[in-house]
């Protein structure tokens, strides 16, 4: 068995494709991709913030102070228009003549004596995820309303020191019991699982194809089968190889993300990474690795079974495509907002490991549940491996 293991590892290490998938991808390609993604997102947000919105204001003379504030706001640009009807304004916005229409009620008066509520209308396209118009306009309106409020209260005989008691009788101070680690874990924990688990799968899949279907395609399988070692030993040797690369891939990724994070963090002065690293103890990292071990074993056994069944590289790759979809489904479930690790979720393979990793990063893992998840994953892995071994004994699988 160890002979097979050693030889497969030697061969894989000499293969450029494996090096790419297992080492280069996580060390260089992924961080670069994520970096670019982050830059693009940051850029989009920045552009949205700097964008200038053309507006039309109806009955501006009723609220001159607001009109002036709008006029001098750097993100708003006034456009002249003869339109006054809401429908016509809507149509004009759709035709991209301007972006925003503000209709101030005709009967509005900024006088302090006016004590009726007035209803205004704003018209714009609200489909954007970053609704900057809403943000900027509300800021202006809030300031304007506050001024009116104070003036009106003053006219009613409320002095400025009583204003707070009247407008906000209760002020709330919030004290968060969650440690900063728990907050952070909730935010990035699911994401970490989402990266680690597929990486284990990818790390397993290329070598699995190479040493299963590849062996068939090259015509070396037959020779291997008639060597005086049992087929179980051959399968276990191959299985361990696949498992090793899967885990190596995950480990290298974690290390590389940590390293890159540290570099970027120290360059940009962001200490969130350092914080995460310091809160995550060695024990937690080992526990995460412990959870990944049986999961990778499941992947390795499954992939090897598929690969040895296939007649060629191509066929094996065709089988692996749908398999990765099956793996992603429970992962997506685990990443849904509001999904917590309950006993019911602990029964769902893959999703339970993803949630356990999240809990481990948050530092709120229930140790009993962790053991149950680990145990059930080990049992599934054992069953898969047993299947793989018996699968490897079948003539109709080996000589298709």
């Amino acid at each position, binding site marked *: 068995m160890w*002979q*097979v293991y050693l*030889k497969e590892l*030697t*061969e894989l290490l*000499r*293969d450029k494709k494996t090096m790419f998938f297992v080492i280069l991808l996580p060390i260089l390609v992924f961080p670069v991709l994520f970096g670019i993604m982050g830059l693009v997102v940051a850029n989009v947000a920045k552009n949205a913030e700097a964008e200038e919105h053309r507006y039309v204001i109806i009955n501006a003379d009723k609220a001159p102070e607001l009109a002036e504030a709008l006029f001098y706001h750097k993100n708003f640009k006034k456009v002249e228009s003869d339109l006054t009807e809401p429908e016509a304004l809507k149509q004009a916005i759709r035709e991209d003549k301007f972006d925003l229409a503000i209709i101030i009620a005709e009967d509005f008066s900024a006088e302090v004596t006016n004590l009726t509520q007035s209803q205004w209308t704003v018209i714009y396209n609200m489909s954007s995820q970053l609704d900057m118009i809403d943000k900027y306009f509300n800021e202006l309106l809030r300031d304007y309303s506050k001024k009116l409020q104070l003036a009106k209260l003053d006219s009613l005989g409320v002095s400025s020191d009583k204003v707070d008691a009247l407008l906000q009788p209760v002020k709330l101070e919030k004290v968060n019991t969650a440690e900063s680690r728990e907050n952070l874990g909730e935010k990035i924990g699911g994401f970490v699982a989402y990266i680690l688990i597929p990486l284990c799968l990818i790390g397993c899949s290329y070598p699995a194809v190479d040493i299963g279907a590849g062996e068939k395609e*090259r*015509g*070396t399988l*037959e*020779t*291997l*089968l*008639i*060597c*005086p*070692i*049992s087929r179980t030993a051959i399968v276990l040797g191959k299985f361990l190889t696949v498992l090793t690369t899967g885990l190596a891939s995950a480990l290298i990724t974690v290390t590389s993300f940590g390293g890159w994070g540290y570099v970027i963090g120290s360059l940009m002065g962001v200490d969130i990474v350092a914080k995460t690293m310091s809160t995550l103890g060695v024990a937690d990292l080992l526990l995460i690795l412990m959870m990944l071990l049986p999961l990778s074993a499941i992947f390795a056994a499954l992939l090897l079974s598929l690969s040895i069944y296939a007649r060629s590289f191509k066929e094996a790759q065709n089988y692996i495509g749908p398999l990765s979809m099956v793996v992603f489904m429970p992962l997506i479930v685990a990443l849904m907002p509001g999904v917590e690790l309950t006993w019911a979720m602990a029964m769902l393979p893959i999703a339970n490991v993803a949630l356990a990793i999240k809990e481990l990063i948050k530092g709120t893992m229930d140790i009993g549940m962790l053991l149950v998840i680990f145990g059930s994953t080990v049992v599934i892995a054992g069953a898969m491996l047993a299947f793989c071994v018996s699968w490897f004994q079948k*003539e*109709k699988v*080996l*000589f298709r």
Partner: protein
Amino acid sequence: MIKIQALAKSFAISRGQKLSDSEKQDVRYSKEAFHSVRNVSFDCGSGEVLGLLGPNGAGKTTTLRILSTALQPDSGSVLIEGVDVLTQPVLARKKIGFLSSSTGLYGRLTAYENVAYFARLHGMSETALKQRIDELFTLLNMHDFANRKADAMSSGMKQKTAIARAVVHSPKVVILDEPTTGLDIMTTQTVLDFIRSLKQQGTPVIFSTHHLDEVASLCDRVVVIDKGISAFSDSFDVFKSLSADGDLRQAFMNVINPAGQNKEYN
């Protein structure tokens, strides 16, 4: 010394698999299974070279795969130097060297590593395998490319490496499945020389082939398999005498189509 008796092997036909018309006419197809090998018996003494002849799909490869323990027969027995291949496959495998024209090498390993891997799988010690590989590389004139990766070798080098790999554990019998099919003339010569050298050492060789000239120049015994049955098994001379003028092709046709049954094939 190899003795094979009444081998039979069938492969299940998956449900829904449609048989072609020609397959339906083949007596070996039943509703559930394809009886690839029905009754094959022959034996081969030490120092003898046995040629296995037969049309495509006759059951030659299946027979050789059973011999090499890759497949398990449904019934029959295979004895190699008294060891039953079926009950003691691991022990029997140590006595067998197997090679076919489609046998591949591990492309990213060197010639030496390819051979050494199989030597280790055969349980050879490091010193023993080093000595044996050195010996084989000298014999096959392979030292020049011992450290070259198989991916970068010519087909002749690959075939030599495959030969060295097949005999590194000094097998008691060598089984070759169409060893010269698809090889160029030079490489074929390497294989034939190798069979000859095995014969000189007294190692029995069983090989299947479609080339009657190879049979004529090498074989002591001839077995013809047709439709999963060993239709002929005797010495080369007896085989040759099956045709009036000693023409091997005619002799082969006479075995496949005994007089009076010709219609079946027309």
